């Protein structure tokens, strides 16, 4: 507490030094929360999709004159492939929002699954509020939480999908996947919506159109190899889910390096202000050091006094930075939710504690050299000042 009082006796200098550390910690908290959030999204999505391959029907195949035959042939080949447990047709149609808001995050999509796919999709399609549509029901929608926020739609509201009206009957639980920003409609409705995306002069869609297949691999199957074999089927494209995950992970690694690097530079500037402040403190308080030594302080006592003050600067800066960081993060997320964007940040105790510990440790390191100079001052020299 003496350290706190010594700092309080020079309020302006202490304020600016603490602010230097606080800005660094603010940056670290914000980017740390951003990174935490991205890592969570990637980890969950990777875990949920590790044995699922999305085989998309190429757009060129979908609008070609013999689309029907191509798709049917592809579906047949797909189901017959070794290692395929199930191949479920899906409809995925881009959602064109009427809202002019700029958006972060993945695009909103409209999904339709046949009944048999619902069980497989169970993990991703947990209804949070309301209900799932009933078999045979039409023109109803179950919406993801981020979509609900973006379109300001709730249960009972009507949303317009490609110009048609749909009544919202349920909202989905948050999954941190693309479904958060998406809409799920009955399969027949999704097929109608898909037909609308095909230019009117191309009347080639099969009567039971699909746009993709969700392929579930048998356990023990090499999904990478399976994905490559699927991609060889005429009219289909597929990517190895692990390849996708690895690409995302390496992108995430670069992102981490850039944002943490920037935050560390901000902190380093703060650390230099601690060195400066502590050097001035030692110079100003040379006589005090002499007095302390005259009444029996050891070098270690003096060292601890000044290192303690540096640590206190770090602790105050750390707390201020974390609090400011949380305010920034909560404010940005609140704005982002209003605009219908994905929540950008995840605040974890690990991020906050890590930032705090780092602030204190950095300040101690920064304060150490001036403190050591103070500790080594001969008492007679110090008392002469």
């Amino acid at each position, binding site marked *: 507490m003496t350290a706190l009082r010594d700092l309080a006796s020079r309020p302006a200098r202490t304020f600016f030094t603490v602010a230097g550390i606080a800005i660094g910690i603010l940056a670290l908290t914000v980017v740390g929360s951003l990174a935490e959030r991205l890592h969570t999204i990637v980890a969950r999505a990777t875990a949920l999709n590790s044995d699922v391959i999305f085989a998309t029907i190429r757009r060129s195949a979908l609008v070609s004159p013999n689309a029907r035959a191509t798709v049917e042939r592809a579906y047949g080949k797909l189901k017959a492939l070794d290692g395929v447990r199930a191949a479920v047709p899906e409809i995925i149609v881009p959602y064109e929002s009427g809202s002019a808001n700029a958006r972060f995050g993945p695009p909103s999509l409209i999904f339709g699954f046949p009944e048999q796919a619902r069980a497989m999709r169970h993990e991703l399609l947990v209804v949070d509020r309301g209900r799932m549509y009933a078999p045979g029901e039409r023109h109803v929608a179950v919406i993801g939480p981020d979509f609900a926020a973006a379109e300001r739609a709730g249960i009972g509201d009507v949303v317009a999908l490609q110009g048609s009206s749909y009544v919202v009957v349920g909202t989905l639980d948050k999954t941190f996947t693309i479904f958060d920003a998406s809409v799920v409609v009955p399969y027949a409705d999704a097929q109608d919506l898909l037909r609308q995306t095909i230019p009117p002069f191309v009347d080639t869609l099969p009567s039971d159109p699909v746009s993709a297949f969700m392929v579930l691999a048998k356990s023990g199957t090499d999904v990478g190899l399976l994905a490559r074999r699927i991609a060889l089927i005429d009219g289909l494209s597929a990517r190895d889910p692990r390849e996708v995950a690895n690409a995302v992970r390496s992108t995430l690694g670069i992102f981490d390096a850039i944002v943490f690097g920037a935050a560390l530079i901000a902190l380093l500037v703060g650390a230099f202000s601690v060195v400066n402040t502590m050097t001035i403190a030692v110079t100003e308080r040379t006589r005090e050091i002499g007095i302390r030594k005259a009444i029996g*302080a050891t070098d270690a006592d003096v060292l601890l006094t000044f290192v303690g003050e540096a640590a206190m600067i770090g602790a105050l800066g750390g707390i201020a930075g974390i609090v400011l960081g949380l305010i920034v993060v909560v404010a940005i997320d609140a704005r982002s939710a209003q605009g219908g964007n994905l929540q950008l940040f995840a605040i974890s105790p690990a991020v906050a504690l890590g930032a705090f510990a780092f602030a204190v440790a950095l300040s101690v390191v920064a304060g150490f050299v001036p403190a050591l100079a103070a500790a080594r001052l001969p008492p*007679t020299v110090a008392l002469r000042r």
Partner: protein
Amino acid sequence: MSAAHEPLAADHSIVDVREVVKVHAPGTPTEVRALDGVSFAVRAGEYVAIVGESGSGKTTLMHVLGGLDRPTSGDVVIDGRSLARTSRRELAAIRARAIGFVFQGFNLLPNLDARENVALAVRYARRSGRDAFARAERVLRDVGLGDRMHHRPSALSGGQQQRVAIARALVNEPALVLADEPTGELDSRTAQTVMDLLGVLNARGQTLIVVTHSEAVWRRANRVIRLADGRIVADDAA
């Protein structure tokens, strides 16, 4: 505070200064031989004044006696412990437990109140932390500052500050109290009270060495050592 000072044998030396030479900036053009073969002993319970002109070596002697500086040659033994052959850490321990300093400029820490200033010396003496405030309060009451415990130095008069400094010097019951011009910054009436207090301490058996210019101060001592050019030129009972 007298409890710790049991009557000692008359020949028991608290301070033994043996052929002390102190050269400042040796081997440089500004070399100064501040102390040049100084020897004397101070027995328990003595009240010694060290006097001399400016530059006579008084302050250097005070620093060497107090373990703040080491002699170039010779030795100083305080309460049986040689200062010449001790580590920095041991020297700090001797300053904390065996010596109490009273300075001309009071030298209190401005951000600590009276009680904390005194208790800091207890902490540096590595005595029980919980005991520190109790000890500090007892000694402050003893020097007449029972109602000023929580005042910071800036809220105390010069005389009161010097009494806090004296309390700090006494709190660890040192074998020796060293005072450097203890009345130098006080008006004559306040100086009188401080001198009275030092007199009382000595009467209770506290060994005192006072470095001073002031005749009023050295007249109260029972022995006066006069320095000139780093040597003892007179050593008399006052």
